[in-house]
């Protein structure tokens, strides 16, 4: 067999002079220093407590920040299915609805109001778990169906959830549940957003995540390389819907009013746009996509109806020039687990160390 020389791993690209280049180098230095990340996270968490406590920014911006967080959770969780697994799920709002209703029913009907703030984290988890279970409903058809047909299954799921809720009078039917206590706070949103990103990232960079990725690349080859594709699909759908449920619970307790109409196909489309705007198969992309989408819609509010004309145009132009979205299939270094980033490097070092005495 012909053998080729491995490429030079740290080949120096010719550096251009100039101001931009200096900024680039600075950015590289920051990006390669992972110790900044925990500092940033701690600072973010402290800020998320201080901002509402002392009203550092106006309540409107606080609200936007919380929506950004919720949308990041939705977007990252949908990216697991649409970006990492390569399926086309169009019913994410259906999962969100389950989480929102489970949590809202718990806080408005079952749990005494006095206990609500204390039990809220637990309620959110219960909502997530319930949604995760419902995720199985979609996961099982995915064993056999793919592409447009699975898209239809998720779409039908979305419609069915909406229709079921409309037909249950005990939870308000088409009128929905009003008067939900505002329990979603900035620190909690921050906490859940970071947790969702962390858990989904960990999953993606694990054995199971690689299984999910291999399904996107070539399902048959993946199966033949010993990947239990059913297990991988089941996990991906369960985790994705778990976090969609959590986002739904946070959303319900921020909006304080939910009705089936909130969770229709248009809501699902919004999340889809965020995912593909940010970039498939990238958590950085999902964070960017959700943030840009949410913030842009607010910034363009003065334009009135025209903002809704402008947004789709932005999306179309982005797709034409960057078909994979802003960060498609690429990841910012901090979001890759440290060991995964260094695995090959550590192995080479170890090998050099064991080879050296043998050679002398």
């Amino acid at each position, binding site marked *: 067999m012909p053998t080729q020389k491995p490429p030079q791993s740290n080949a120096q690209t010719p550096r251009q002079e100039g101001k931009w280049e200096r900024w680039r180098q600075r950015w590289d230095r920051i990006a390669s220093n992972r110790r900044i990340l925990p500092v940033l996270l701690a600072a973010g968490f402290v800020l998320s407590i201080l901002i509402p406590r002392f009203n550092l920014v106006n309540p409107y911006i606080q609200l936007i920040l919380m929506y950004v967080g919720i949308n990041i959770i939705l977007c990252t969780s949908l990216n697991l299915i*649409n970006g990492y697994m390569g399926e*086309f799920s169009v019913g994410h709002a259906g999962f969100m609805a389950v989480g929102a209703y489970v949590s809202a029913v718990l806080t408005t009907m079952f749990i005494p109001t006095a206990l609500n703030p204390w039990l809220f984290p637990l309620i959110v988890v219960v909502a997530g778990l319930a949604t995760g279970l419902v995720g199985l409903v979609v996961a099982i*058809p995915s064993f*056999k*169906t793919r592409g*447009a*047909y699975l*898209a*239809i*299954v998720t*779409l*039908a*799921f979305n*419609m*069915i959830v*909406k*229709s*079921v809720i*409309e*037909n249950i009078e005990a939870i308000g*039917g*088409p009128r929905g549940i009003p008067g939900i206590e505002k329990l979603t706070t900035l620190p909690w949103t921050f906490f859940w957003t970071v947790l969702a990103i962390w858990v989904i990232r960990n999953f993606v960079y694990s054995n199971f995540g690689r299984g999910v990725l291999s399904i996107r690349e070539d399902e*048959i080859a993946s199966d033949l390389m010993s990947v239990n594709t059913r297990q991988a699909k089941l996990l991906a759908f369960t985790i994705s819907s778990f976090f969609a449920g959590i986002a739904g619970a946070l959303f319900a307790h921020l909006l304080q009013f939910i009705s089936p109409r909130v969770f229709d*196909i*248009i809501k699902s*489309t919004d999340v*889809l*746009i965020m995912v*593909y705007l940010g970039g*498939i198969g990238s958590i950085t992309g999902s964070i960017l996509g959700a943030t840009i989408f949410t913030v842009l819609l607010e910034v363009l509010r003065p334009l009135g*109806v*025209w903002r*809704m*004309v402008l*947004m*789709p*145009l932005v*999306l*179309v132009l982005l*797709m*034409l020039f960057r*078909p*994979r979205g802003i960060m498609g299939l690429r990841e910012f270094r901090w979001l890759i687990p440290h060991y995964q980033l260094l695995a090959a490097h550590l192995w080479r070092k170890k090998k050099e160390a064991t080879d050296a005495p043998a050679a002398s």
Partner: protein
Amino acid sequence: MTYFLQQLLNAMQLGSIYALIALGYTMVYGILTMINFAHGDLFMVGAFLCFIAATFLKLPFVPTLLLSMAGVALLGVAIERVAYKPLRQAPRVSAVITALGVGLFLENFTLVFSPYPQHVPALIANRTWTIGGVSISSLQIIIILLSIALMIILDLVVRRTMVGMAMRAISWDKSIVPLMGVPLDLIISITFAIGTSLGAAAGTMYSLAFPVIDPYMGILVGWKAFISAVVGGIGNIRGAMIGGFILGGVEIMVAAFMPSTYRDFVAFGLLLILLIFRPYGILGKPRPQKV
């Protein structure tokens, strides 16, 4: 029994509209393996063109219909050239998202000029006949017959003409067929023109049957037509027709014999059950997997 027949007639009316729209989805999917999510909104544009022609130009039914079909066909071809053609080599899903964006653009652009729902004037003299207790309106007859006629013409075009043969060949293999001298871009444009003009015809008839139109009317109808196309087996033209009538039938019958709020639940539930037993739709076949 009369009640049932009456509902069956309604089902035929709704089903033929779904079927006409579903054809657009299935034709584009067949040729580009892409779900054209803007198609439902082209249906809406068709309805609005009908409204403009009837209200401002005071045209009668046939010119209105033709104007709406021609206008939407032009729009469809333009959309394909501008928004989808550059993405033929890109991942499929990028084109699908672009289509979603185009659809949103059409909705909201129309909304700018028509913030309130519009009322479409009646273009067809409303006469009703009663046969054995079942009442049939002139509008229903026209909708059903015209749809069926359009579908038959389409079926003949696809099966009997050179253009139709080229379409079928391209849906089979996009890389080889152009080498045989088939003008790929032209055929794709023709496919879009036909598919979207059928959607516009559906839009025109829909706006006559349900005369209050708004810019978001295409979303739900579009999704349902897409479901019809999938139920029939996406990419399959006869499948789309069958799928449209099935979905129209299920929706009307569920609403007729059960509380109407159950409609979506039962219709989509049935759809899921159908997809469990026939994962590739009624007439669809799984593409053979090469290993």
